[in-house]
């Protein structure tokens, strides 16, 4: 039973971070290898906000999320938009370079010391007992709730609102969208901002649960597997993708070597690439087109 709880919490974390990969892939057709670093930077900003506001969550979290949004928009404006028309490979390399730059900045500003934002929280993370001897804490419940709300908002945005339709249109065919009056630069910047918003949201929960250090970007990068397994073009696919990866990771940690935890998502990724490269819900043309 405890395993189920762990899987659920991990799924929520992965879902929040993986949503960003899908959003960016749909908007700019690139694999954003800087997403992990964006998550790490978001975590550091959250940490600084906590310190600055003296542990006031109601101020720190929105501030950090807003900053995360701005980081995403900034990365788009500085790194992606100038390279419009360049081959995809170049843009992926640009995201790698931006990621390294973000990591360098984070280390210089905050030093490589490991931080524990959990110590700055105004409350203690109280565990609850449910269903026998399974334990779930307030933070765990909060992360699941946050992920659920985030996804509901995203889905409502994309399926029901005119803005969402225009974002999907711009993601599918930027030229035609521009010729229909959509300001595609604003719309794509919005996608990037939302993606990094999600990454920061995941960072908030991850850093309070575990810790924060410049190498946290590796955790963010693991979230790539759920995105790919669900299908890089499908936001809904992130949920089953995250579930599968979380399941494999928790089971591997439990029954195999704990060291396998960090490579489990990639093994699942490799398997998915060999069996079904376009993911569970992705569109098949994607693979051949690329």
């Amino acid at each position, binding site marked *: 039973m405890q395993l189920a709880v762990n899987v659920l919490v991990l799924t929520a974390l992965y879902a929040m971070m993986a949503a960003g990969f899908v959003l960016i892939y749909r908007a700019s057709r690139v694999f954003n290898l800087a997403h992990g670093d964006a998550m790490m930077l978001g975590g550091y900003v959250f940490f600084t906000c906590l310190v600055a506001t003296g542990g006031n969550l109601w101020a720190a979290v929105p501030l950090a999320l807003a900053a995360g949004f701005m980081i995403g928009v900034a990365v788009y404006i500085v790194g992606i*938009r100038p*390279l*419009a*028309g*360049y081959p995809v490979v170049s843009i992926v390399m640009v995201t790698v370079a931006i990621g390294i730059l973000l990591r360098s900045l984070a280390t210089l500003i905050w030093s490589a010391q490991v931080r524990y934002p959990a110590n700055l929280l105004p409350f203690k993370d109280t565990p609850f007992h449910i269903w026998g001897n399974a334990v779930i804490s307030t933070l765990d419940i909060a992360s699941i709730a946050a992920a659920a709300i985030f996804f509901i908002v995203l889905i409502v945005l994309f399926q029901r609102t*005119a803005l969402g*339709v*225009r974002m*999907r*249109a711009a993601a*599918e*065919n*930027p*030229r*035609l*969208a*521009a*010729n*229909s*009056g*959509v*300001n*595609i*630069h604003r719309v794509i910047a919005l996608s990037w901002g939302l993606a990094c918003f999600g990454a920061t949201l995941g960072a908030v929960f991850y850093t309070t649960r575990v810790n924060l250090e410049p190498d946290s970007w590796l955790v963010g990068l693991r979230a790539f597997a759920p995105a790919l397994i669900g299908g890089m073009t499908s936001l809904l696919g992130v949920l089953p993708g995250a579930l599968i990866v979380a399941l494999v990771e928790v089971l591997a940690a439990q029954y195999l070597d704990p060291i396998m935890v960090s490579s489990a998502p990639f093994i699942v990724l490799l398997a998915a690439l060999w069996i079904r490269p376009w993911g569970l819900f992705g*569109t098949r043309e994607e693979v051949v087109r690329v």
Partner: protein
Amino acid sequence: MRGLRVDNLESVYNKAVTALSGVSLEVPEGRIVALVGVNGSGKSTTLNAIAGLLPGDPQAVTGGGVWFDDERLDGLPPHEVVRRGVVLVPEREKIFETLTVAENLQASVAKGRDQAARLAEVFELFPDLVPRKASIAGYLSGGQRQMLALGRALLCYPRLLLVDEMTLGLAPKVIAELLTRLVQMRDGLGISVLLVEQNVTAALEVADYGYILEKGRIVFHGTPDKLRSHEDVKEFYLGLGVAGARSYRDVKQYRRTRRWWG
């Protein structure tokens, strides 16, 4: 001047290939003007240059200008051109394939305009779309796609429509119906149209004026009657072959020197 004015437009692809070397034309308000030419003459290039280019496009405008209602259009991004009332209906990729018909129409932006009223007008013009509102656009037939493309353009409240090769791959009946709709748009909604076509017969049926584009230059222009009575147009563009011509290589265009200027 009310309407579109293109003055000596020059356009280059990939900084190497000159596609347009000095194109000048006019589309007065409330008129349908045809721009005809063979493959590679530069018709789509002209329309793209008018409709606005995105950063990262291989095409670039290197000379001349485009004015609509005496406001300069070239250099503006596409969504700004749409805001000023000039909307492009492209040749390929003219609809959003993964969105439904209704979503396709919803994607058009017309700031401060009554989209609901215009939507009703679109469904009146193209009744075929009504039962298919919830279908994925990718599954529509060729004629229905073109209708959806025109509908999507109409929802941007255009004053000038740039229509690129509307009749490609469509049955004659469908072509006739679409042309009728264009005329209805001109008369009922006051929309001018710059109609780019390879199907010269069809284009000249509805046009008020016509331009002939060859290798990036306008070589002739006039009313449809004037164009239809011109020898070279008859022979090459209308397919009314002159007796004795055995292959297209014999046709005037290929051994023509300065016949056009007259």
